[in-house]
Each structure stands twice: as C-alpha cells, then as structure tokens.
C-alpha cells in the first residue's frame, strides 16, 4: 500500500519494501518453534526466504561504494 516512508535519508512516496522483513519473519519462526508449531515455523521461514531473495534482486545492481570507504 503506497505511503510516505523514509528511504535514502528523505521522505518518499511509494510502496515501502522493508529491509527488515526477513529478520522479523525469522524471529517469528523462532517463536513458533518455541511454541511447538513446526509447520508454522517452516512456513514463516519459507516466506522470509522469498522476501530475502526479493530484496537481493532489488539490490543486485547497486553501484559500488566510493573508493576508500
């Protein structure tokens, strides 16, 4: 859903793709394991991997950082 969000140090309009989504997905998977829900944990892992690969695709062509960083 489009909204104002912060990216690159500025407020921009668009659909946010949160870089943190995979981490929270995996954290929920760990919580499901703790609760003894194996299939929920596996499903959350699978969704998080898909999000991770999607983010990889978005960052695949990032430019190199400035030399000497």
């Amino acid at each position, binding site marked *: 859903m489009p909204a104002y*969000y912060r*990216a690159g140090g500025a407020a921009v309009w668009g659909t946010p*793709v949160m870089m*943190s989504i*995979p981490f929270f997905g995996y*954290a929920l998977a760990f919580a499901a394991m703790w609760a003894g829900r194996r299939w929920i944990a596996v499903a959350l*892992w699978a969704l998080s991997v898909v999000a991770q690969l999607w983010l*990889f695709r978005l*960052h695949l062509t990032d430019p190199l*950082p400035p030399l000497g960083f």
Partner: protein
Amino acid sequence: VTPDLSRALNIAGLFAVAAVLAAALFDQLVYHDLPCPLCLLQRAGFVAAAAGLALNVRFGPRPSHYGIVLLSAVAGAAVSIRQMLLHIAPGSGSYGDVLLGLHFYTWAFLIFAAIIVGSAAMLLFDRQFEPPRPAGLPWLGRAAIGVAALLALANGVSTVLECGAGLCEGDPTVYELLEPAAPAAGG
C-alpha cells in the same frame, strides 16, 4: 550418529552461527561499521540457516530441516559471492572492515560453504532419523534457540533504525531513523 548426538551437534552449530551474528553486531555497534544492503542479506542468510538448525534442535533431526539449512546457506552464499565479485577487479575498492586479512563478505562465503559441507555430511548418517525422536528439549537447546531468536530480533530492530521503512542506502553512514528527516523528494 544417534538422534541425541545429532541434536548436540546441531546445538553446537546453532551457537556457532549465533557467534557469527553476534560478531557482526559487535562490529556494527562498537566500531560503527554500518552494514550495507548486501551485508544485511548475508546476515539474514545466517539467521535462516540458524532456523534450520533450530528446527533440528527443537523437533529432532529430519532431512527436511537439513534442506532448510542448505537452501539458506546457498541463498546467503549467493549474496556474498555477488559482493566479492563487485570488488574483485583491481581498483574497485572494498566495503567494511577486514578480519585476518579477509573482508567480512569473504568470511561470510567461507562460513556458508562450511555450513553447506557440514549439513551435507550430516545427511550421510541415517541413524539420526530413526525413531524414537529425542524427547524433551535440553536447557542448552533452549538457550541456543533463544539466543538465535534474540539475534534475529536485534538485527530486525537495527535494520529498521538504519533503513527506516524502505530499502537501505548502498553506502550507509548514519541510522536514518536517528537523524532528522530531509525534505520530501520533489517538494
């Protein structure tokens, strides 16, 4: 390899992956080495592999859990290979800190490769998959899963602080949410 020994080895592996994640967070917080997007995706790969190990610890060893570890490590290794290739040409610079002569992304690839080899080797031992599955969950296993879960959560919070609700900058120098907002793009 008995189911109990397999579980013990998976607990050790889970602590080892947690140590890698903790070292990355330590470097970020103490030496202010902010992770780039590809660095964050490599961390996510380690957390994903940890989830597979944790499944083995929590529910007993299964081939599908090792499959989860292997797929996660391959996904993480793909990111680290991409980052190594970005900097492989002479004069293309590098990113982040160096440990024992290797950049973190090179270390990440080596560790992902070790995870792949280790998981494939574990799959060679069929006896661990025979019933009965190990009963209960030892306190060390609970501790390993708890530490991994906390590190996943800490990385999520850190990523929100660094990148806000969007994608991260390629060359981050500040935590976006801790800095004053810039004017909206295009007025």
